[in-house]
């Protein structure tokens, strides 16, 4: 079914129509206040002192000279905190607001100051004297796993921060029964979230003990919990208020950071609001990045390309802290065989502590890495067996109704539809193997969850308050981070209540006011929060319906809410306007009309160490084709065309879905071709957007060469059939590029980024190998 047919059939008035972002206007005019745009009377400026050493004991910190500098109002060190570890998973928590007796990477926070201006704050840092005793450091995970390697934490022998292991079916048997077995090792690099807005916050600790943090957090409630934990105070005393968010992509905007703790504790010390803003080089030096990984993938297939068994072993560089790494190391296993039927799968993945910045979540949390490995290897297998790579994927593709060996229940899964769409639209058959030298086409497929029920609290809630002018106040706990949550959630409410999107106001998250929520990550908001909003709107509508039914003398079932009116379906003249219905209902009920809803997946949470069970209420599928042109003398790659099909269930807001799809694409393209956070001996060499190179507008193909397709599967678990759209469309992109570059040049690059020099070396190698 097409988008239009669904809209027609369902009679949607809001859903399915491209809708500009609600906050677009104030963002385009510069009015929207991001965290660094907040100014309070008497506000002080904070700055963090960072470790210059990758691993050292802190013997002594002398802050006396800094404290005496005129303009300095407060200096804090670990002593000012209760020394309670905070973090995400109880068994891996290892964060402290400031380093206590040991620093474990260059950039780790050891002290903070608050001063009347930034110049003074910086000068004060120069005056803090830290006495370190350097310790041997270890930077690569392989070395860190050796028995004699320096240990970062006592509780983690061999520096294994976390691991995930599972085995379904019988891999050994499967491999033995395969006609062809192939093993490859793929390497992926460190990559940053790269959001343009640096982390920033303002902290206020009032005399009453009330603590407020204004910040650009994508998961304000996680931060709320972290603050309570690390400060050792009652969560009820803490209020986290979201500002506009200049991009998140997970990482530091999802957690409590040293700056957040220091802002509030310095406010307590000084009695003033304290603002912290990272400079971009601090953002790039500190932790929070994508795990770099070594992925060893062994796959057995039948002669005809049927996948039989897959064994994957991953070593990931976790850096100096656990962060959300327990989840990170489970997720590649989750995605490993999502789009294909592989009866026997085995996974061992290890996240290793090293003296480098710590890694965690980043858009599509580990999926682009695992897809790079799998989708590159499928292509190599097809080549080896002389099979058509498209047909090989088709043969093994999953479809709706499948259950994976690890227990994922794929309700809908539009993989094959997506495959057909991009193959046809890209002219694959006319191009594959037929393009001139230097020109190539490549593809990859992927699958993605729509929010996971992996942690204890994984429910979303919504509240709706209908005002007597017929406008709707919508509150959820899910922050808009640019992905369009404000708009799509308002659309859902508007559709149910028959009002316009502009009639709905979407509240910023405020832990004192808006419902509890895990936050904006894991592709969960549209499905989970969307379902909660739908319920809340239906709850409110029910109250209105009863009164309308009486007034219009109709069966509530026959009422239609649309275009700010309520009327009887078979007699549209018999109706009333929405605002007067609201007033009547309010009168009749004796209280304002309010609705509530909440949603959690019906499944039990599964263990992140690699347990069996259904990870998500819905799974999306994506297939991407790219065409590239490679300059065979320099190795330079130009992207000539994109065809990306994604099964988002139903595109509630096609404009936002397109935005998410291209956003995910572009980020993965950056990882494939340009981005690389380079560390030497633990020191970041390129903490600057000059050298940390994210894609520019000129790196993308021209408008007419970008083709996006929404595959419509109407998932029964999604609100109005919707599934995720913000991460899946990027998962296969790295592999598709690698495959296209191979197709263009015959060079197979198995380590990221696929730089011109690697391509050029590959070309030279193949030239010298030719007789």
């Amino acid at each position, binding site marked *: 079914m097409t988008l239009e047919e669904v809209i027609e059939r369902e009679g949607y008035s809001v859903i399915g129509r*491209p809708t*500009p*972002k609600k*906050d*677009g*206007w104030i*963002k*385009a*005019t*510069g*009015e*929207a*206040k*991001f965290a*660094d*745009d907040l*100014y309070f009377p008497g506000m002080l400026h904070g700055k963090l002192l960072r470790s210059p050493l990758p691993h050292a004991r802190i013997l002594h910190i002398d802050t006396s000279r800094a404290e005496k500098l005129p303009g300095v109002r407060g200096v804090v060190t670990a002593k000012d905190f209760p020394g309670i570890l905070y973090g995400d998973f109880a068994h891996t928590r290892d964060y402290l607001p400031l380093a206590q007796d040991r620093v474990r990477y260059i950039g780790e926070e050891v002290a903070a100051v608050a001063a009347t201006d930034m110049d003074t704050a910086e000068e004060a840092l120069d005056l803090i004297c830290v006495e370190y005793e350097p310790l041997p450091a270890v930077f690569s995970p392989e070395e860190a796993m050796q028995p004699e390697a320096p240990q970062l934490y006592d509780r983690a022998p061999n520096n294994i921060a976390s691991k995930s292991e599972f085995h379904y079916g019988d891999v050994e048997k499967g491999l033995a029964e395969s006609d062809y077995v192939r093993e490859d090792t793929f390497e992926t690099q460190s990559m940053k*979230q*790269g*959001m*343009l*807005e*640096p982390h920033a916050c303002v902290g206020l600790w009032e005399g009453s003990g009330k603590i407020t943090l204004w910040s650009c957090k994508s998961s304000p409630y996680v931060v709320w919990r972290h603050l309570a934990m690390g400060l050792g105070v009652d969560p009820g005393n803490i209020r986290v208020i979201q500002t*506009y*968010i*200049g*991009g*998140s*992509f997970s990482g530091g905007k999802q957690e409590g950071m040293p700056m957040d703790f220091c802002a509030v504790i310095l406010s307590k010390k000084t009695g003033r609001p304290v603002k912290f*803003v990272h*400079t*971009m080089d601090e953002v790039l030096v500190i932790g929070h990045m994508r795990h770099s990984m070594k992925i060893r993938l062994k796959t057995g297939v039948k002669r005809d390309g049927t996948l039989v068994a897959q064994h994957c072993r991953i070593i990931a560089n976790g850096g100096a802290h656990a962060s959300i790494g327990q989840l990170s190391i489970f997720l590649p296993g989750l995605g490993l065989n999502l789009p294909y039927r592989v009866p026997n799968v085995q996974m061992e993945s290890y996240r290793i502590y090293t003296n480098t910045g710590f890694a965690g979540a980043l858009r599509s949390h580990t999926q682009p890495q695992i897809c790079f490995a799998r989708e590159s290897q499928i292509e190599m297998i097809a080549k080896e067996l002389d099979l058509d790579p498209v047909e090989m994927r088709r043969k093994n593709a999953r479809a709706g109704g499948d259950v994976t060996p690890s227990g994922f229940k794929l309700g809908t899964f539009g993989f094959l539809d997506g495959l057909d769409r991009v193959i046809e639209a890209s002219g694959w058959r006319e191009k594959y193997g037929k393009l001139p030298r230097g020109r190539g086409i490549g593809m990859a497929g992927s699958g993605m969850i729509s929010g996971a029920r992996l942690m204890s609290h994984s429910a979303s809630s919504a509240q709706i308050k209908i005002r007597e002018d017929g406008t709707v106040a919508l509150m959820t706990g899910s922050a808009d*981070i*640019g*992905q*369009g949550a404000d708009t799509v959630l308002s659309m859902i409410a508007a559709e149910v209540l028959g009002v316009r999107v502009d009639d709905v106001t979407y509240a910023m998250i405020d832990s004192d006011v808006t419902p509890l929520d895990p936050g904006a990550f894991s592709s969960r908001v549209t499905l989970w929060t969307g379902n909660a909003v739908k319920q809340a709107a239906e709850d409110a509508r029910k109250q209105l319906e009863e009164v309308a039914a009486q007034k219009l003398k109709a069966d509530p079932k026959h009422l239609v809410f649309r275009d700010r009116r309520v009327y009887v379906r078979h007699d549209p003249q018999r109706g009333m306007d929405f605002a007067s219905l609201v007033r009547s209902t309010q009168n009749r009920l004796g209280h304002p009309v309010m609705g509530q809803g909440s949603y959690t997946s019906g499944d039990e949470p599964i263990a992140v160490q690699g347990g069996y069970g259904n990870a998500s209420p819905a799974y999306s599928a994506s297939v991407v084709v790219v065409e590239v042109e490679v300059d065979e003398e320099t190795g330079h790659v130009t992207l000539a065309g994109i065809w990306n099909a994604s099964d988002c269930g139903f595109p509630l807001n096609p*404009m*936002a879905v*397109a*935005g998410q799809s*291209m*956003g*995910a*694409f*572009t*980020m993965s393209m950056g990882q494939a071709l340009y981005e690389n956070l380079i560390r030497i001996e633990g020191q970041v060499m390129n903490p*600057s*957007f*000059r050298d940390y190179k*994210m*894609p*520019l*507008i*000129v790196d*993308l193909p*021209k*408008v007419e060469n*970008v083709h996006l397709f929404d595959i419509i599967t109407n998932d029964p678990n999604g609100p109005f059939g919707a599934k995720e759209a913000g991460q899946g469309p990027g998962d296969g992109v790295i592999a598709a590029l690698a495959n296209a570059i191979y197709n263009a040049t015959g060079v197979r690059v198995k380590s990221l980024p696929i730089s011109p020099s690697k391509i050029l070396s590959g070309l030279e190698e193949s030239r010298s190998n030719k007789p």
Partner: protein
Amino acid sequence: MKQRVPISLTVNGEIHELFIPPWQLLLDTLRDELGLTGAKRCCIEGQCGACTVLIDGKPINSCLYLTIEAQNQEIVTAEGLVEDGKPHPIQKAFVERGAVQCGFCTPGLVVATKALLDQNPNPTEDEIRIALSGHLCRCGAYVQITEAVMAAARETAQKEVGV
């Protein structure tokens, strides 16, 4: 060393008499002294374009420009494109074409587009791309941004012929 010097700055048509440190950058003056926070503090190295403002119609990175050197010139920020409370057609095009996601890059892009269309009312797609190549958008809305600029160009062209 003089900690502060008097200067006169014309921003969005308004003259401001200020007393600022000579080492203050235009970005900081706009934000910290004048409360014009549309220009964003992002990379502060001229690499991202989020701090772009116009000086005498030319787009510049305000993070690499001393305030003291911006005197006697017309400075325009994203806030200044709004006329009588109405967003500029460029701002409108950005919103309506889905070119705004997180919005952190948007004010800079909008003023850069203003400069482009003032100088070159009918840019080719290549020219649009080159003109905006100094603006990072991590949300990856480059296609939508290009479309928005093309739409804005059409709209301003129509206005001129009075359609």
